[in-house]
């Protein structure tokens, strides 16, 4: 039985809860960090469906529903049903949250462009896992590659701390009237969800201001606001020029809303990426736990006298193209370690920089393996040796 208690939380400004409130350290798992974020996010409703490695996070959200932190919560019929229910609830004007990962993401996939197209400020956590077949429950970030073009904003957490902050801040970024788009907060399954670390959290007796559906740029479906506009999303089925133009301009508007999110992301997440050793000739660009492994490799390289820089990407949509272009300007080699076979991050980087032969799309591990730091170290050595050869030849 979950302990029942009366929850008394004070609503405070987002800036207070994000930046000013005194934080205490808790030694918790990534799943527990989700619970702590949702406790403080003033979420009205959550819908869950179990899938490893996400299940525990939504159990814990259920627990805090039982404690009175949320107004409604239930277990849906499958991931498509859950993502649909979350859409219905969001169109009805409440703040919603759910989470999934791996095969669950793909089962629900049709809903993600639908969320973006309907301008729903849904926040969803995705705990990355390999997709079938053959069956695996192990971490693998291939699903992020699939999700990049859904129109959703995509954040990638490296740690439980990132996960906590990104989820909490996502509600405020997603609900800005000039954005009003869904945000997917991704974290690598098991590596983040099931491991424990120190996470700094603000007090649990404060929470974000509630969602105001009347600040939405598209009408809330409650039959309360004149003049009535019937459809939440534009319904353009005719085969004529006006229909084509309407649909095309709507898609452009969804992408433009994503672009307008940049200023809010800068303000709340403190930028799109975090860097180390910006002046080194060799740069590692990574996101998620690949960044953790990269940091370790950089320490080891330093001991061997090789200076290596790092750009840890926190945000993948909108893609920080300008920031990356500036950073790689004088780099000799750009190493992109990834936890997937397709190399979607290397592909993204190659698409925005000049002379993309500098991009080394390696090392890659997939199928759920951890990434030995040695693999990154070897890549660093290889690149350093190549640079030395150039210098002396």
């Amino acid at each position, binding site marked *: 039985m979950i302990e029942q208690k009366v929850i008394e939380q004070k609503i405070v400004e987002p800036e207070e809860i994000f930046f000013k409130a005194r934080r205490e350290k808790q030694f918790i798992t990534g799943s527990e960090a989700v619970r702590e974020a949702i406790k403080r996010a003033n979420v*009205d*409703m959550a*819908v869950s469906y179990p899938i490893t490695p996400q299940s525990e996070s939504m159990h814990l959200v259920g627990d805090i529903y039982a404690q009175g932190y949320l*107004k*409604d919560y*239930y277990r*849906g*019929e*499958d991931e*498509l*049903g*859950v993502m*649909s*229910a*979350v*859409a*219905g*609830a*969001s*169109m*009805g*004007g*409440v703040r*919603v949250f759910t989470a999934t990962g791996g095969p669950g993401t793909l089962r629900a996939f*049709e*809903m993600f462009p*639908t969320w973006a197209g*309907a301008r729903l400020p849904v926040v969803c956590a995705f705990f990355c896992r390999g997709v079938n077949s053959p069956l695996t429950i192990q971490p693998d970030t291939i699903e992020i590659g699939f999700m990049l073009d859904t129109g959703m904003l995509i954040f990638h957490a490296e740690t439980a701390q990132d996960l906590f902050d990104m989820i909490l801040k996502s509600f405020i970024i997603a609900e800005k009237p000039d954005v009003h788009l869904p945000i997917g907060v991704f974290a690598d399954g098991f590596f983040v969800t099931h491991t424990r670390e120190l996470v700094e959290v603000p007090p649990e007796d404060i929470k974000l201001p509630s969602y105001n*559906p009347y600040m939405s740029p598209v*009408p809330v*479906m*409650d*039959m*309360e*606001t*004149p*003049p*009535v506009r*019937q*459809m*939440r*999303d534009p*319904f353009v*089925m005719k085969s004529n020029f006006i229909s084509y133009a309407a649909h095309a301009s709507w898609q452009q508007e969804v992408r433009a809303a994503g672009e307008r999110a940049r200023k809010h992301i800068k303000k709340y997440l403190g930028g799109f990426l975090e860097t180390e050793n910006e002046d080194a000739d060799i740069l590692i660009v990574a996101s998620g736990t690949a960044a953790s492994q990269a940091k370790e490799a950089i320490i080891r390289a330093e001991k061997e006298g090789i200076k290596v820089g790092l750009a840890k990407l926190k945000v993948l949509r909108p893609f920080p193209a300008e920031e990356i272009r500036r950073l790689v300007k004088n780099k000799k080699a750009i190493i992109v370690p990834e936890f997937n076979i397709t190399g979607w991050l290397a592909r993204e980087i190659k698409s925005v920089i000049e002379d993309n032969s500098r991009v080394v799309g390696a090392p890659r591990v997939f199928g759920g393996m951890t990434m030995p730091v040695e693999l990154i170290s070897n890549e660093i050595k290889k690149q350093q040796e190549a640079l030395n050869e150039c210098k002396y030849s």
Partner: protein
Amino acid sequence: MSANIVKISPGFEEIMPEDYRNLVKDGPYGRGLDVDKLGTFKELIEEHPLCAGCGLALSLRLILASLPNPEDTVIVGTTGCNSLSFSQVAIHNIHSLFGNQNAVATGLKRALKIRFPQKAKDVVVIGGDGGIGDIGLGMVMHSWFRREKITTIMLDNESYSNTGGQESGMSCEGAVLNMAPTGKKFPKISLPEIARDAGCVYSATITPASPKRLGKVVKQAILIARELGPTYVQIYCPCPTNYKFKPQESLKRAKEKEKDGSYPIKEYLSPPAKEFVEGLEVVNKPR
């Protein structure tokens, strides 16, 4: 909300289309009208794009005239011929994907309950037999299992008509349709019975050939859902385009099928639903 939902900003009265002005002046919001009064008020649907003789179009018109509370009703639709007409319906409505309507309706209903706990906000699913009986059946049934307080209305034209007349689960056995080139191999799904066993407190079949009865069934279904739990209404909507009969024969076919029992007209009320409806009749009886 009553007629306020469509009120016009002061100064803009003259430039609003006439249909809109009529809706404000003479629409059904807050007036408790029903099918008996059709033709005496501005209806909620205007200039739909459905085929001549379409059974869906007529049924939809009758459904909209029978809503007990149109000013606080939200419709959730799904892909199909009927969804093409929803942009001409003067009520908030949602079109999401094909088959996920009952899951969307669940989220919506719960959200409206959170936001307006003291107010009756009806969520009504209206979809075709493909959306409700086939591709969406899992999500439809799960909304019934969960006892969501929503009404599901199937416009049953016995085929996937919008995509060109493919067989659906609701097509009759032996029907030759696209994708059933030698005739459909299994019987029509007994959805009214499935609805009852899955948790619907009210389930009924009807055709637009009996408009007054259809109106009563729809009204009852929505009022029962508001108080007690999920309800299901299945309406036979003949499709002249895909079943290749003359548009003017639609109603005749509905009547015939009603009469010869090939479209059995049924009504099931759970004991609490029966008690509730009897209470309604007492309330509504003239003194």
